[in-house]
């Protein structure tokens, strides 16, 4: 018992101090404010940062834009991940399965920055790869942000769906087939309902990772601002305000997690 205790001390301290500690520090900082000359942090607690967030419409626009981007990325990833995961789990031979799942995971070993910069070179207009090859490109802007984030987070959607499919007995598919259902009817009425918790679990990753992004949007977003960009821009000059704005995605994710708790998706994370 004692040994178990000492084994757990490190990880518990890690979670308590670094994880909760930084969240609490973020939250507390968000209630401070800058003095009038804009230097340092006034040690006076107040809600001025939140009042400013509530009053200026630009921040509302940024929050809405970020949520919409995160939602679009999630939807695109669901539609891409479902057939890929289904093929890997149910159709591919065991040997091909290993190769394919490795192929899905390999991009995660590459640096985020390198991938984002690569997309910058692909999407640029007129000098980018896409434009030179196919004669058109969306260029930098909001569509580019959605494309790049959907690419970056796709493995986080494929893996839970693949895991969910592994747990789906083949006999159910066969039974459905025997009863006369075609592929699409089986997919729609048997596979998707049973996979729903896995899809929601994947969406937690794609949604939350998109909510916090600020690098992809800086590299391919053109003039687009997301929550992360505004936090980054204020981080250097107005830390308390940046902290206040950074609590917004935390709140959005709390609401999101509360909403999906009943689906059982948290079991699939």
């Amino acid at each position, binding site marked *: 018992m004692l040994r178990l205790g000492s084994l757990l001390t490190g990880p518990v301290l890690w979670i*308590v101090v670094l994880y*909760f*500690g930084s969240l*609490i*520090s973020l939250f*507390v*900082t968000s209630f*401070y404010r*800058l*003095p*009038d*000359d*804009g*230097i*340092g*942090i*006034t*040690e006076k607690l107040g809600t001025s940062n939140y009042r*400013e967030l509530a009053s*200026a419409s*630009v*921040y509302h*626009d940024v929050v809405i834009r970020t949520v919409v981007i995160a939602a679009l990325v999630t939807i695109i990833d669901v539609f891409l991940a479902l057939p890929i995961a289904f093929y890997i789990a149910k159709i591919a031979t065991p040997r091909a399965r290993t190769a394919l799942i490795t192929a899905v995971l390999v991009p995660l070993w590459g640096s985020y920055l390198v991938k984002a910069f690569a997309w*910058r*070179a692909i999407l*640029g*207009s*007129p*000098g*980018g790869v896409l434009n030179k090859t196919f004669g058109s490109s969306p*260029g*930098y802007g909001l569509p580019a942000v959605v494309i790049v984030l959907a690419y970056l987070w796709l493995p986080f959607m494929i893996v839970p769906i693949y895991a969910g499919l592994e747990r789906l007995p083949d006999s159910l598919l066969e039974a459905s087939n025997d009863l006369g259902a075609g592929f699409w009817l089986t997919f729609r009425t048997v596979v998707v309902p049973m996979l729903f918790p896995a899809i929601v679990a994947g969406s937690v990753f794609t949604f939350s990772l998109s909510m916090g992004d600020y690098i992809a949007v*800086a*590299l391919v977003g*053109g*003039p687009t*601002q997301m929550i992360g960009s*505004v936090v980054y*821009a*204020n*981080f*250097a*000059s*107005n830390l308390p305000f940046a902290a206040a704005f950074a609590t917004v995605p935390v709140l959005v994710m709390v609401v999101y997690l509360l909403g999906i708790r009943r689906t059982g998706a*948290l*079991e699939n994370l």
Partner: protein
Amino acid sequence: MRTRRIALACSTVVGLLLTACGSDSTKTADTSASAGTASSSPSSSPSTATSGTDAGPVLPTAIGAGEGSLDIIAWAGYAENGSTDPATDWVTQFQKDSGCKVNVKIGNTSDEMFQLMQSGAFDGVSASGDASVRLIDAGLVAPVNTALIKNYADISSFLKDQPYNSSDGKNFGIPHGWGANYLMYNSDVVTTAPDSWGVVFDKASPYKGKITAYDAPIYIADAALYLKSAKPELGIKDPYSLTQAQFDAAVSVLKDQRAVVGEYWSNYAVSQTAFEQGSIVMGTTWQIIYNLAVANNAKLKTVLPKEGATGWSDTWMVSSKAKHPNCMYMWMDYITSPDVQAQVAAYFGEAPANPKACALISDKTHCDVFKATDEAFAKSVHFWATPRKKCLDGSGDNCVPFSEWIKAWTAIKG
């Protein structure tokens, strides 16, 4: 499910306990971090500066032995060690001479540099005027004994004892070099050479979506400078000392510009690739971006528009918490020596602070092109400065402070 619930309940309890004890410790940490600044008021910069020095070391009277290491924040191109281009390297020589191993952290914007200096992990910084005043006011930099820098005497007199590098009769750094922010354009696409900043502020621009602007609140001064001559009735004198009406006019120009901007840049390498690819064809730039892009065969030109330009006059400053102050003094002496000044000025594309460098630059016209010794020209470039309520140009106490510039910048980008 049951075990999950219990785990969740436990973590909530732990979380609540932590809020009780954690918030206390956070507050103490914050207090110590900002102790030097908490009491400062807008008009008391000299006294804050003094309070900053009380805690820090007294003015050094000699440069002691090197500490073997030096951590500095620099603009891209100011402290090159050959990693960008093997032929461009003056840090290695310094390391050999001084025995100080140099770690360079590139600062992309003045705001970033200010933030990095607050961490206390750096010995010095090449600060522009929109960071240096804040650094002095916040007590983050120490006064410098210029007598210990043997090259200081050679530095152009119009760069010495300026509001952005001194306070209350004390010097807070050594001038490094200066220059203007140019208007750059792609000469393949933009066939009529522009002569006014108006082309980047035109909301009906034919180059819609291909215009760039500097992604920092200080860029509002560029719009103010343009309005100074485009709308003289506003009565703008100094683009960093704006009344609310003048400020609103500049913000409105920038909100119109937002519709034609393809990308805001704050990272010089990102801006360079945008110009090289042609996704951006026009906008404000630094000479170094032009130099790097043209080296990659981009068809670009720069002009200094008729309105004049904003610009920078940079200062090497010593952190008040420097762990390697001797190495920092050696660096300041080294970087202002004629030979090194010549290398930096030629590579970065700016006027050297030390005019003795001019004779050593292989391009003999360099100092003429950058008007390095032209005091009247230097006075016409509007060097970056931190706007504050007490107007920098002494015109009153009703200027829009920098905190408002920051908020406006987010609103401009939308």
